[in-house]
């Protein structure tokens, strides 16, 4: 191996490949965990935008769900102390109730967005922005009230422990570890993305949803109830946002902090567009963001030895922090090509008979 590294010029490329493989195999579990909130946010966006509703309020929906999940779980945990974790994923009653509360909150906030953008026909961008601002303000206020007397949370789900022989397999073991040695919400992300991909492109509901997002008038003429389908999809999209919020306070972390989503709802939107409004595309886009973020950290904190290390360390830190976005631009321009939104996205639908 090391012989390859010493070839001039070309050697650097071998060193880089070696470094990349090391980083991704070592940090696979962390990368997939960080993919989860981005991918879940993007799936929420897929549900909304495929049926013709713009949703830039994902950030706020996730924040509200994160707070609700954390708060409800902590309160239930106080009320019934000593609940023992279940055999799988460390499920406890408080955590499950918290998870339900987070999902319900996601659906509730989505219902508000649906009402504003479908029935009231308000500007959908404004509705989403309003959700972001209100969620930040309200959760921050409640947290301020609660933080007078800090109390312990309900903890988190724990990671699934895959059998040792599986993760020790040569070459592919790290992939099993990456996808299986995870907390439940993180594991569910890939499953949800695959299911949604199939539903959207292989089912009657999917065909109708895409029709409503592309040409609602045509859909209405063949008997699809556009308003009802949009309502249903936007509210179901809230389930994903709710799960994304629960990831912050019940799955990956165990405490709520004001503004803790820190822009991930917007990165999710980028992943949605980057993935061309496909669930799997969005998942891989989110994975790419998380992986390049992790690579940026690895270069700064655990640089490879030798020439390559010197070369990589000469890159300013600011550039490394921006690595996910640089990768986006390169991939978007070079590989993905033009990404086309559903035609009717952002346009409130107006039935001809009632307008």
């Amino acid at each position, binding site marked *: 191996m090391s012989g390859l590294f010493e070839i001039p010029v070309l050697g650097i490329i071998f060193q880089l490949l070696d470094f990349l493989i090391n980083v991704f195999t070592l940090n696979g579990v962390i990368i997939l965990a960080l993919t989860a909130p981005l991918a879940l946010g993007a799936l929420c966006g897929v549900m909304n935008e495929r049926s013709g509703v713009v949703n830039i309020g994902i950030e706020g929906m996730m924040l509200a769900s994160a707070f609700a999940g954390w708060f409800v779980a902590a309160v239930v945990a106080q009320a019934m102390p000593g609940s023992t974790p279940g055999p799988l994923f460390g499920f406890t009653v408080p955590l499950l109730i918290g998870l339900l509360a987070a999902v319900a909150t996601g659906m509730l906030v989505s219902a508000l967005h649906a009402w504003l953008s479908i029935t009231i026909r308000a500007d959908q961008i404004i509705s989403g922005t309003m959700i972001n601002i209100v969620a930040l303000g309200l959760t921050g206020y409640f947290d301020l009230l609660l933080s007078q007397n800090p109390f312990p949370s309900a903890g988190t789900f724990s990671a699934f422990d895959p059998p040792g022989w599986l993760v020790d397999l040569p070459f592919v073991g790290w992939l099993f570890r990456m996808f299986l040695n995870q907390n439940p919400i993180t594991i569910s992300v890939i499953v949800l993305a695959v299911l949604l991909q199939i539903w959207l492109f292989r089912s009657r509901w999917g065909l109708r949803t895409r029709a409503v997002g592309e040409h609602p008038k045509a859909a209405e003429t063949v008997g699809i109830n556009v308003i009802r389908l949009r309502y249903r999809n936007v509210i179901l999209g809230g389930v994903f946002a709710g799960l994304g919020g629960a990831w912050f306070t019940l799955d990956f972390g165990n405490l709520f902090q004001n503004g803790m989503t*820190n822009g991930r709802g917007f990165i999710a939107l980028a992943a949605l567009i980057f993935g061309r409004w496909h669930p799997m595309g969005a998942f891989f886009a989110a994975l790419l963001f998380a992986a390049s973020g992790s690579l940026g950290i690895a270069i700064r904190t655990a640089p490879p030895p030798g020439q390559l290390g010197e070369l990589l360390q000469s890159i300013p830190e600011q550039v490394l922090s921006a690595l996910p976005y640089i990768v986006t631009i390169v991939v978007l321009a070079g590989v993905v090509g033009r990404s086309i939104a559903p035609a009717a996205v952002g346009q409130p639908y107006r039935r001809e008979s009632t307008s």
Partner: protein
Amino acid sequence: MPRRPWWSRPAAAAGRTRARADRRSRSAWSPTSELTDVGTLNDKNFNEYSWLGAQEGATRIGAPAPKSAISQASADIAKNIQSFVDQKFDIIVTVGFAAGGDTIEAAKANPNIKFIGVDQAPCVTEAGDNDPNFGCKGDAAKLLPNLLGIGWKEQQPGYLAGIVAATISKSGIIGGVGGTKVIPAVVNYLVAYENGAKSIKSDIKVVVQYVSAAPDKLAFADPAAGKAFTQQMLASNAGMDVVFQVAGLTGNGALQAACEAKIWGVGVDVDQYVSTPDTAKCTFVSAEKKLKKNVSDAIAAIAAGKGKSGSVKLDLTTDDVGLSEFHEFDSQVSAETKKKITDAIAAMKAGTLKACEEDAFGGRKQ
């Protein structure tokens, strides 16, 4: 056609635009206000305890409860200070090193308002303007008599934290997670932490890494990023068994990562065993500053007409910095370790022991 109820009418058809006069009356005269660093008020840490100090100070001087503003980005700071100036507050507390420049400018423009800058040391030119190059030619105490910068010698508690970390580490590899290296307080803590650890075991490996390149939300307000960062640091430094967090909320994620990896964490600024109960079981000790007491005292001093100006650096001699209690881990600290800590405290008080070089922060004066 029957009239549709209000909730199912589109906005354009609702036709109920209310032209409402701006009813915002002038709020009651309220003498103190606080402005947070980038991030959030209730961080269970630096900003929150400064805020508690401002509240306590207001109560002590018999003033109404203070108001607060939260800056989401560095660019908001000047705007938020101005809004407090316009509301005619008597005392304005700004929190965080990043607010220092804007506080100086505001103090110069409003000589009748008292400013307290937490974690700041006013550095001005001869004309009394903010000196972004940190030349500090002017005498801030004279040029800006209405501004007091409160700073702490973070290196002292940082050094003590290093002593504890080195004694509880079994592997001889310990870590530090900083928010960003452009904030002097963060760097002081961590440089002294390394020195303190090396004073116990000269061959100990201390890995110090910074989450963000800038003092942004990633550096101080993102626990998920802090946890992932720390996990990645633990993955690439096998055996590391103590993590000292100097990253505010982001660092609370670092403590979480430590708990999950079943290693020790060391808290920062406040006693994190108390302030973040979720990670108490692995928060061995915290490096503390007495934020609440010091801010409250500064406000009371102004009200009593004894307000200082310029900058003060609080340290061990007045017990304004130090280590927190060990709480339930007290039995795990040997008498020998405790003696080493008391000796180091005595030496630092006497001035014979320096926790770190005065200029640890890359040549910039504080």
